[in-house]
């Protein structure tokens, strides 16, 4: 499949990051670490790069803030060709979060968060306010944590600080390299949820690298799946990827249970409901709720159907069949 080029989701001004035939080949290697790749990332979009190790996802990410220099192609961020911007200046305006967090151990949490504003010559007072605001935003009480040192925090707390630090100068773009990869599964789940809520408020343009397809499906507005040979196998929404995997690699990378996973991505409002005939037979749910959440509610209530507000009623069977039907129609098409 040729590399895809998705013309931006709207006018040029809606594209925050544009990769144009970007490639990377290391001198000692005879294969591209990143094959010529073109993706437009819309302002406020959450794009996840996912794939097995060695697929070039991290290299792609690091080319955006020029920690790695591309061998070919261009990267445009906020309407500027990054090749023509001073790399340090560029990076101060792009948030960067890595798996190892990388807090400076000899600086307090507050000083860590204030690093980029300090480089941008903000006043002391403004930095102090911003630090407190950010600690609050990531769920750490400023009075408790401001003057602690990184080693006094748990891994999950450290990564919250890592996120706060990346957000410090309010950059429009965030690059995140497996930020939750080293955190225990339970805390990771919490952090993912919180991060989604945070993103709903701050609407950053995010490029997020992970090797965990579940994390990708959960977080991404769109997902780019790469295979071991650094080939972009599919670039689409989570639902579309689950519904119609582009090829055998994507299918195997998603693994088993695509239909079940789809339940947590589909919204009941998207399913054909039977126009309400008799009211009061089931619990009422919002069209925006996911099928899996609604199923959960129905089963917990010991019922077999729900009423989708303004749409009609859906039985458990309707939901399961509708999900499966979409699957078949998608595969058939």
């Amino acid at each position, binding site marked *: 499949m040729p590399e895809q080029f998705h013309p931006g989701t709207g006018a040029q001004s809606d594209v925050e990051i544009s990769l144009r035939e970007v490639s990377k080949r290391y001198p000692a290697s005879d294969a591209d670490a990143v094959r010529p790749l073109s993706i437009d990332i819309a302002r406020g979009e959450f794009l996840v790069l996912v794939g097995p190790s060695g697929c070039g996802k991290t290299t792609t990410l690091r080319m955006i803030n020029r*920690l790695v220099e591309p061998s070919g192609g261009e990267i445009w961020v906020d309407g500027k060709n990054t090749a023509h911007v001073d790399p340090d200046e560029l*990076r*101060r305006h792009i948030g960067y979060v890595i798996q190892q967090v*990388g*807090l*400076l151990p000899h600086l*307090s949490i507050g000083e860590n968060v204030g690093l*980029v504003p300090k480089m941008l010559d903000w006043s002391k007072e403004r930095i102090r306010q911003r630090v407190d605001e950010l600690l609050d935003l990531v769920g750490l009480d400023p009075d408790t944590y401001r003057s602690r040192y990184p080693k006094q925090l748990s891994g999950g707390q450290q990564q919250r600080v890592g996120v706060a630090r990346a957000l410090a100068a309010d950059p429009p773009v965030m690059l995140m390299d497996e930020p939750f990869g080293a955190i225990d599964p339970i805390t990771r789940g919490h952090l993912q949820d919180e991060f989604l809520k945070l993103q709903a408020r701050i609407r950053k343009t995010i490029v997020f690298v992970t090797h965990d397809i579940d994390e990708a499906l959960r977080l991404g507005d769109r997902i780019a799946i790469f295979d071991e040979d650094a080939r972009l196998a599919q670039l689409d929404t989570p639902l579309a990827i689950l519904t119609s995997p582009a090829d055998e690699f994507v299918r195997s990378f998603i693994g088993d249970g695509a239909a079940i996973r789809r339940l947590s991505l589909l919204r009941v409002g998207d399913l054909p409901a039977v126009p309400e005939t008799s009211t009061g037979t089931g619990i009422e749910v919002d069209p925006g709720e996911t099928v899996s959440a609604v199923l959960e509610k129905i089963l917990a209530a010991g019922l077999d159907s729900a009423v989708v507000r303004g749409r009609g009623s859906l039985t458990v069977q309707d939901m399961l069949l509708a999900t499966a039907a979409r699957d078949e129609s998608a595969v058939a098409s």
Partner: protein
Amino acid sequence: MTRALSLRDNATAPAPAEAAPRSSFVPPLVAGLLVAGVLVYIQVADLDAIEARSLAFGELLVRLGEHVRLVIVSTLVVVALGVPLGILLSRPAAGPLQPPVLAVANAGQAIPSIGILVLLALLYDVGFAMAVISLVVYALLPVLRNTMVGLRHVDRSIIDAARGMGMGSRRILFTVELPLAVPVMLAGIRVALILNVGVATLATYTDAGGLGDLIERGIVFYRMPILLSGCLLTIALALLVDWLAGVAETRLRPRGL
């Protein structure tokens, strides 16, 4: 004297600062007892004229002063040379220069100080400067190498994060690498300091004084009291200096490490 000093680079990533046990008060106590013992002995012992002259209190103070001055000046020079050199050599651009410079520093430590001392005295002159030069040659290696090792062992992911935040290499050096390397660098400086206390006893052969004067005079005149006093005072000084260096190491280590 060879504590933590193998001659091979990276053979001894010095156990970061050998976690100084909460500054024990034993070493200064022992040092105090040694000094007190020597002073009491000088008072009560039956000393002949040579001994009495060499061990007069004023004389001892002068020797001690010379010794301390040698140690301080040579350690300052070692730090002033070793730290910047170590930083330069740890920059990626200086990669190819590392092996030869380390080889020279290794050789400096392998050659006995007394050899350099005598050589310098024969070729140039005697005196304080020559003594300092030979001390510096001998004690440069631990400072140089610990600076390099300390910088090299800074967690790469911290540097990556710092670069990703838009720190330039100079800023990374001063706000990230050097502070994080401080404990290892301090350990190297401490080693240099202690080496210098010991080797400075040889300064007497280049006419630069120090406690070595007592030892040498004790040997030449075959006067055990002088010899013994010189030895014990040197030991007391070494214990005290090491203890002070340990305290400084704990104090100067950046918080949070």
